[in-house]
């Protein structure tokens, strides 16, 4: 008999496993991805959800028996990917 071990990672940046995610959904009865993001930290690391948020939404939909169209993704914000702060000093402000 093969003994399985190892983590199935959901959010690679914040080290949140699929198991932990599903457990939180069940324990708190959460239907909102926003609340799970704030509780577990999924989607808040350097990749900002590029690898986890869609997968999390579909997992949530499956687990709660709701349609993916009823699961709202978390809010996307600039920057599209991390850039050095020092570059922004040279951003043109100009007149507005």
């Amino acid at each position, binding site marked *: 008999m093969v003994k399985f071990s190892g983590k199935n990672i959901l959010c690679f*940046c914040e080290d949140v496993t699929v198991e932990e995610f599903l457990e939180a959904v069940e324990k708190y009865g959460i239907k909102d991805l926003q609340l799970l993001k704030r509780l577990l930290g999924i989607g808040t690391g350097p990749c900002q959800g590029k690898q986890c948020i869609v997968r999390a939404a579909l997992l949530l939909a499956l687990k709660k028996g709701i349609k993916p169209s009823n699961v709202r*993704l978390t809010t996307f914000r600039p920057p599209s990917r991390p850039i050095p702060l020092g570059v922004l000093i040279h951003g043109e402000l100009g007149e507005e």
Partner: protein
Amino acid sequence: MPRPSPPTIKFYFDDKEVVAYKGDTIASALLRAGIYTISRSLKFHRRRGVRCFRGYCRSCLVEVNGVPNVPACLTLVEDNMVVKSQNAYPNASYDVLSILDKLPHLTSYNTIYEGAFKNPLLWSLASKVIEKITGLGRFPQTNVKYEYSSEGVIETDVAIIGGGLSGLAAANMISQYNVKTVIVESLELLGGRARLDPIEDANLKRLNVESPKQLAEKLIESISKNEHIVVINNSDAYGLYPEERKLGVYIRRSYNKGSHVLIRAKVYIVASGAYEIPGNFRNNDVPGIIYDYGFRRLILDYNVKPKGKVLIVGNGGYGERLKRLLESLNVSFEGPVLDTDTNIKPRLVEVRYKEKIRCALLEFENGIRKVDAEYVVISKGYTPALEIAGHAGVPIVYDEKLGQYVPSHNMYMETPIDNVLVTGDTAGCEGYYKAYVKGEIAGLTALVKILGERKDVLSLREEKVKSLGGG
């Protein structure tokens, strides 16, 4: 791209000397040298390495000459570069804190919020420890060297974010009407994923090309001849603020050098492509597990030939196409197999590893089989890259037919935001042919917005929309 022998560049990774070719990135050089573990994950200190090879996954972050959180996959090697792994002590191979991976309950949300750490005294101690070990890169020194500058403001008619197939198709279409276009491309070359797909695609025959690669090359050639198109490579369109009519762009020159440019356009076309769907199996984060496009970059752009077997994970089109590529290159492989997304066998259930991948456990109908592998390539498919359209304010909706989350748009690639269009895989991953046609449609819609409702443009657009239906 690396030149042929001899390798002429020498740099240091965790105090170990590594040789590299001119044109190598830190990531390609390390993989070629058989170094897979580049970093440790934030909480569990699990081994991590190169995954996407194009700067979006942030898995390969290293410290370069004192600059923290540098993506190894985007940074060209330079002589005597001092590269250090992050979040690992004493180094990435032997990290004392990797014990945290064996004690996941210690750092789980349950323990932190509702467990022992509720106690103020215990929390006072725990927080002191956390503050000492948290964070990825090292806090830089005040005298760290860098050079950033401004390239001012670019005024243009159309700004296209993404130089892949659909972005090129849009630009090509627009260029025929003497309208000014700027293409912002993240990588060093145009062509996106199509450029690295030389296998024939029957859907593209009606465009008189054999493969996505051929189509990309055709478009790139056409664009290079056009004086109304400006291409900015190695650049990240970091912030699209459509009501302000501003697109902030970061031009990467080196790990510590770059420029800012502000692009003001009448129409912004978001052709930012798509991201690979991650694997669903135990230890799906181990170094050696690489996304489809990243693997193509590794073997085609950087000439790093796998020394061991490659396990392909994926169903449907993408796994098959990678299989045909590996066959044509005589690379030893296994699969495609599925993963625990489904119950269909054979499927990958677990990857076993030490310093790198040792083997993969495949579940067959009649039991588990161990398969040796050096790389496990995730070719399960793609999901639209939503962050640019999303942060610009385009609502994200779920497309029932495609089974994907996409930015809200109509058949003309218009979004609820007047000056923002989406196209290609960003508007839904439907294969190369549709990405190309959607690019043309977006180009035509941009023309309508700039030149007005011209009969010829409108009728051509209707033609294109119709041809999508038959794809």
